[in-house]
């Protein structure tokens, strides 16, 4: 009887710190997990077969895929939390300029946008002879929710076509132009 109680007590006394440790770990990793979850919700399929005149190498294709997905994850975060920080890195030039403008005007009008369930079917249609610019055509499907404060004013699944220009930087590809069009 006594040994059983002892075991039970011992288990509890060891389990409590372990539970706290796990909880602390989850809390510590929560932002990273959240970021991962957001990233995982962005699905991108890239087809480079039509790209030319330069052929897209495998490593380049993987880099573009990685950075394009990250850009959409970052853009979704920027529009959801009305924050400029996520835009630093994945965007440059004109794309970065208008995204910053969009976030500023969202802040001023009290609006926010949630892009979820993103699915991007991307075709590379042009890759310059020297490999310094690539044009992508993205048929993006996502759920877009627009909020005024906490009130949802629009909530719909949409399909949007984007013409995208990406250029390589020191360690990543950045989006320089992101322009929605009615059709390709």
């Amino acid at each position, binding site marked *: 009887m006594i040994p059983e109680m002892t075991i039970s007590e011992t288990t509890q006394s060891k389990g409590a710190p372990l539970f706290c440790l796990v909880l602390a770990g989850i809390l510590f990793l929560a932002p990273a997990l959240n970021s991962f979850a957001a990233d995982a919700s962005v699905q991108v399929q890239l087809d480079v077969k039509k790209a030319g005149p330069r052929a897209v190498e495998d490593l380049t294709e993987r880099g573009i895929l990685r950075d394009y997905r990250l850009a959409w994850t970052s853009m979704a975060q920027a529009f959801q939390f009305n924050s400029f920080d996520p835009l630093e890195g994945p965007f440059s030039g004109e794309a970065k300029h208008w995204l910053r403008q969009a976030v500023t005007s969202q802040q001023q009008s009290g609006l926010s946008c949630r892009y979820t369930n993103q699915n991007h079917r991307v075709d590379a249609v042009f890759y310059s002879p020297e490999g310094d610019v690539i044009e992508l055509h993205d048929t993006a499907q996502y759920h877009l929710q*627009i909020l005024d404060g906490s009130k949802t004013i629009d909530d719909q699944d949409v399909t949007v076509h984007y013409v995208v220009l990406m250029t390589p930087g020191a360690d990543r590809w950045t989006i320089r132009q992101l322009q929605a069009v009615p059709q390709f």
Partner: protein
Amino acid sequence: MPRRFKIFALIYFAAAWAGVCSAQDLRVPASASAGEGTTISTTGNGKATFYLVGPGASRKSDVSLGEDIHLASQDLQTAGRYLAILCADTCHSSAFYLSAGKPASLSFIVHPSRVPVALNDAVSGVAFPFDQYRNLVLTPVSVNFQLTAKDVSLFSRSVRTQNGIAWFRTTSGKSAGPVRITASLDDLTATRALQQVASDPCNLRITGQRTKTGILVQTEPVHDCTGNVLPDGTIVTFTATGRDGKDTVDAPIKQGIARAQMDSAGPTLISAASGVVIGNEIRVGAQP
């Protein structure tokens, strides 16, 4: 009787619901260009809140239903998809697209900045037309590419943009010197410069003579295969093989000729090379 009542009630509520739904509506423009103001018409009575959400702009304002909503040009400068939302009892939305305006600038990328002469597909350029708000112009337009050296046209081609891009690739010219490359579209012109330099040497020939201090060896004027003098600083490597072993000297070309003084007392075999090109060999006898 109760069954009839139910049917009538159902029809009444359906009609009432349809009435609510049609109480407010909005009509967006079928097409619009960046930087041009436009109008959205509304139906219904009373007050409502209007939202415009698009690239570069989000706007919220109070409007009267039944009146037109005027969107100023400064709200519509970025091409893309805009969503107009009208909220009274419920919210209704409609999307419209803004296309780029007329080309107002050309972005032009040329590679490389320095190129050997007569090299196949060595020069390339890519041009992008943008409107005054830096939207990519996707409507096809013709861009003229021209390469000129000393007012002589080396290359000229008109290329129609596809998906907002026009590009060319060509062989470099035959003469060393500066080349002007232009991309023009109507009255817009973007100019870049590139330097054509001599290619690898052709027929590298050397001469040598014994002097009091050794052997003076020098090249004949070094040209590439199209007759351009190789630029100063191009390295020619002289190798002397004699009884004492092998001696190597690097000498830069100066005004077309590379010279070197080599120490060798006995009979010596001298050769020269520049880049991947190997010149002739000469034999210089022993010091008398």
